[in-house]
Structures are given as C-alpha cells and as structure tokens.
C-alpha cells in the first residue's frame, strides 16, 4: 500500500521539487535572498533558482567548508543566504564552519539539508542523512524544521526566510502526500495536531506524519482513536502541545526517519519524562546504517512503516491500560 493511501491522502511530487519551487517563490519575492549550492543544484532543485536568477545563485563547487563560510560572509552584508546541499555533506564536511560561522555567530542564514533520511534509496548509506537532526541538535540556537507535506514545505521555506536567525530545513528525495490545504498555517515552534484522538498520540515528523495517519486509520477500525501530531519544528520544541497530548491521551508513539539515538523521539521523551511521564514507544532507525535499495523496500526492512507505528501503538495502548 502506498504511503498515505490508507489515510485517504492525495499523492504529490517529490519534496525536493516542492522545495525548489518554494525557494524560487521566495527569491522572486525577496531581493535579499541569495542561493548557494555545493554542485548539487539539480538534486536539491535549487537549479530552478539558478535558471531564473543566475546573478543571485552561486555554485561554490564541491567544497562545503568554503560554501558555508561564503554564505556566512554574505549574511554579513545584510543578504539572506540559503546554503544548500545534501545534509550528509554539509554536516560531515562543514560542521565546524556551521558551528562557528553560523551558529556561534547567530547569523541570519538558512541551510537546506536535503536527502534526509533513508528514502533517497539506491545511492546508499554514504548519501543518506540518518543522523542529520542529531548533528544539527548540537547547535543550540539553530531552528530545525522537518516539513511533512507539500503545503508545509512551502510554508516552511517562507517562514524560515522571514525568521531572523539561523534555520536548518530538512528536505527529502521522496514524494510525500498532501496532508494540508495550500493555505495552511505554519508557525515555527508550533506543532500541528493533524488528527484528533484521545486513546494515544502518534508524534511524527517528515514522511512519518503520513505513516502515522495511515496507522491511525488502521487503529480506528479497532476502535482505537489515535491523535497524530506533526512536530515539524524539532527546535524550539512545542512542549505545551506534547505535554497536553500526554495528559489527554496517556500514551505516546514517536515516529521518525532518523536514528533513534539523538533524534526527535529521544527529545520528546526528555520532555515527557520531565513533565508528564506516560508509556512511550519509538519508531525509528536502530543503531545501523542502511544499504542501497528501493525506498519502500528499505522502509519495510528497517521498520519505518505505518504497520510498525500501528504495532507500537497497540503496544503502548496496552501498556497504558495495564498501568491503570
């Protein structure tokens, strides 16, 4: 079954294409926005900007350290740089530069980390961003955005550009179905309750929001009403919405296309443990790299499907009942 099918969502085009289109819109609207590329513009889709605004597009070449610092320097002249590449290359080649020139400097710079997660598929583990959010988590002042559908990607690119300060945005190679209407409201740091329910809560980000909605649809057939929260902002974390969900539903499953170690789930658990301890389960990547393969095949193999969320949901729901 296709992602989002069970939840009745409409299929769309790959998120990277949505990102490219959204960035182009932002560049058209705001003359201060410039785009820097690490020679991957046809993969990240920043080439859409380059085709229309060559004078505001810079391919710095295969040199991420240089790329990040040149972007930082441009921010020093009042421009708003979008620094773009695969998350794995930016974070692993230029962590030091992101740390000093962007984070410690608290610059108004935007970073696109594309090809997050394992769903880029066939290119294999060297290109996959399975640890990207944990690594960005090491920058205390950087906003972290993980959009879950076309409309929220568009809104996130705009919100990131308008926000004054450093922002990291995760993009993916795969298509994510439409969850929200085009005019959806997107506020940095404000999670969206995508589906209401009071038996348990599924908290997801990126494609796992849709997987969570699919799982919720399956659970409904057995009379279990799952709430689904789209935690599109990992930092600053919407503590109120998470705690409220724990209070009202008493059980939580987190779902992410990322290592469990240092990802969204572990950060939600930190909040839950402190404010409202309830049973939790985690869907994510165990301590392993992922090999080349079809995205669907890999998601199945590494237990990142709606089915996996569903079974964890049943487990946590039972745990909640046993507690009583």
């Amino acid at each position: 079954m296709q992602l989002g099918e069970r939840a009745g969502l409409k299929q769309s085009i790959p998120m990277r294409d949505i990102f490219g289109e959204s960035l182009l819109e932002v560049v058209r609207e705001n003359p201060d926005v410039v785009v820097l590329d690490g020679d991957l513009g046809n993969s990240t889709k920043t080439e859409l900007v380059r085709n229309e605004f060559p004078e505001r597009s810079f391919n710095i070449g295969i040199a991420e350290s240089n790329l990040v610092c040149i972007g930082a320097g441009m921010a020093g002249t009042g421009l708003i740089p979008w620094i773009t590449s695969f998350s794995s290359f930016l974070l692993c080649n230029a962590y030091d530069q992101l740390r000093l020139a962007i984070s410690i400097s608290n610059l108004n710079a935007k970073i696109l980390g594309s090809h997050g997660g394992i769903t880029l598929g066939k290119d294999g583990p060297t290109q996959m961003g399975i640890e990207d959010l944990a690594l960005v988590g090491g920058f205390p002042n950087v906003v972290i955005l993980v959009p879950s559908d076309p409309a929220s990607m568009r809104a996130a690119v705009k919100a990131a550009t308008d926000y004054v300060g450093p922002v990291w945005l995760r993009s993916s190679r795969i298509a994510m179905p439409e969850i929200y209407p085009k005019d959806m409201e997107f506020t940095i740091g404000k999670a969206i309750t995508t589906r209401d329910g009071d038996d348990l809560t599924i908290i997801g980000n990126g494609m796992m929001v849709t997987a969570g909605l699919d799982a919720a649809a399956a659970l409904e057939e057995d009379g279990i009403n799952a709430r689904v929260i789209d935690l599109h902002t990992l930092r600053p974390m919407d503590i109120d919405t998470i705690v409220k969900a724990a209070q009202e539903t008493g059980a939580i499953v987190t779902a992410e296309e990322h290592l469990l170690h240092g990802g969204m789930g572990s950060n939600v658990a930190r909040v839950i443990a402190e404010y409202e301890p309830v049973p939790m389960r985690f869907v994510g990547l165990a301590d392993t790299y992922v090999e080349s393969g079809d995205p669907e095949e890999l998601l199945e193999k590494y237990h990142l499907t709606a089915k996996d969320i569903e079974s964890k949901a049943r487990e946590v729901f039972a745990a909640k009942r046993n507690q009583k």
Partner: protein
Amino acid sequence: MENIKKPTYSEKELKTIARDLRMDILKATTKAGSGHLSSSFSSVEILTSLFFDGILRYKGDEPEWSDRDRFIMSKGHAAPLLYAVLAKAGYFSRDELWRLREAGSPVQGHPVLGNMPGVEATTGSLGQGISLGIGHVLGGRITKRKFSVYVLIGDGECQAGQIWESAMAAAHYKTDNLIAILDYNKFQEMGPVSREMALEPLVEKWKSFGWHTAEVDGHNILEITKTLKSLQTIKEKPSILIAHTIKGKGVSFVEKDYTWHGRAIKDPEQYKQAEKEILCS
C-alpha cells in the same frame, strides 16, 4: 565613495601606537593568566598599518556602517591584539581589555561575532577567514557597496584545506577587493612550521592558485602600508601579502620560542623585563 577623515600619523607616532598595543596585549594576557601573547605580538605592525596608517576605512563610533572596509582576524588566537586595536580605534573602551577571558565578559578568548563592536567574524578554528571574506565581497557586489576586505591568516593556518578551497574560489570570483595578509612568523604551536608540516614553496602555491603575491618585512609599518597600497591597484585577481615576521616580536625571551604560543607572562620578574623591553623599543 564616502571619504573618511582619519588622523595621519608620522612614523614615530605609528611606532608609539605599536608599542602601546604590545603593552595592552601584555597587560591583558597577564591579567587573564593566559592568551596568545606571541601570536599577537607578531602581527602588531600589520594591524597598525591597517587601522592607523590609512588602509582601512572604518568608523569606530559606527561599527555597522555598511560601506566599511572589513577586517577579518582569521587567526583568531590573536584576539588580544584585535581587541587592543579595536579599543584604540574607538570601537569600545580600553577598560574592556582588562576583562579578557573573564566569565560574563564580552571579551572572549577568541573573537565571537556580535560580542564586541568591530569584530567581523567568529574565529578560532583555523582556515575560515578568506571564505568569509569572499562572502562579504560577493555580498557587496549584489548590494552594490564599495568596500575592501582584509583577512589576516597565520602560517600554520595554511595547512588547513579550507584555505586552499577559498584560495581557489577567490581567484574564480576575481575578488580584487580582497587582500589576504599572511603573518609568516615561521612557528606553530608544536614547533617550527618547516619541521612540523612544511609550507614551502609558499609564494608559488598562492601564485599557482591565481593570486597576486607580494612579500614584506612584517615589522616595518611604512613598508607594509606602501605594499598594501600597491596591492589595492591590482585588478581581476585577489592579492596576498606575505609578511615575514618574528613570533613574539618585541620581547627577547619570547621571540622565536614556540613554547610561548598559548601562554601569558605570569612571572613578575619576566613581566618587568617584558615591559621594559617594550617601552624602550
């Protein structure tokens, strides 16, 4: 281009400024109990030329002036010198220098953008300054601002791969308003550069990356200024001034002794001796 009226100093006055800067660095690092004294001393004349002999256009009372020339201290461990210069240039009170490396003080051990006016970049992990400078140049082209960018790098810093990434990019973008100055004091933390990780042939390396090069005695202020002015006229390519310096310049027992790299003078007798040598220079 806005004309900035700056006082012009005689050679004698410039030497006095350099002497004052060395005293401020000595005092600040000794008070802090640590700090890169010798790396600061080797660059004193270079910064004296840049800030006080008519090279940089800046307004100490308007640090965010958008047409200002940029100075980026890529060798961030020379922070004590940078702070002493910025104080003297009117960016902030000289009293701040005595809070170097203190908790709660904005005068951090290495420069942090936004902490002190006049600091253009967060540095301390080496190799990043020229890349940042290129960003300012490209940003200036888009925002149609006319300014120049000066970046001070160290010799050991040239071992960092990013230096050569940025060298390639500066030539590619023909950043003729970017001038790098290399403080070639021949020592790094663990010993002589030539012994630890040799750089030579250094001039040829920069030339082969498409840069215009010049060499100068890095302790002769007037020569530095004269050469920098000639580099300002080079078109279509970035320039680098390789300044031959003495690490620890100004205090005999610190000079060329690499074990002083990250140390301050703490012994009262040594402090007196250092003070005497600087004041008599």
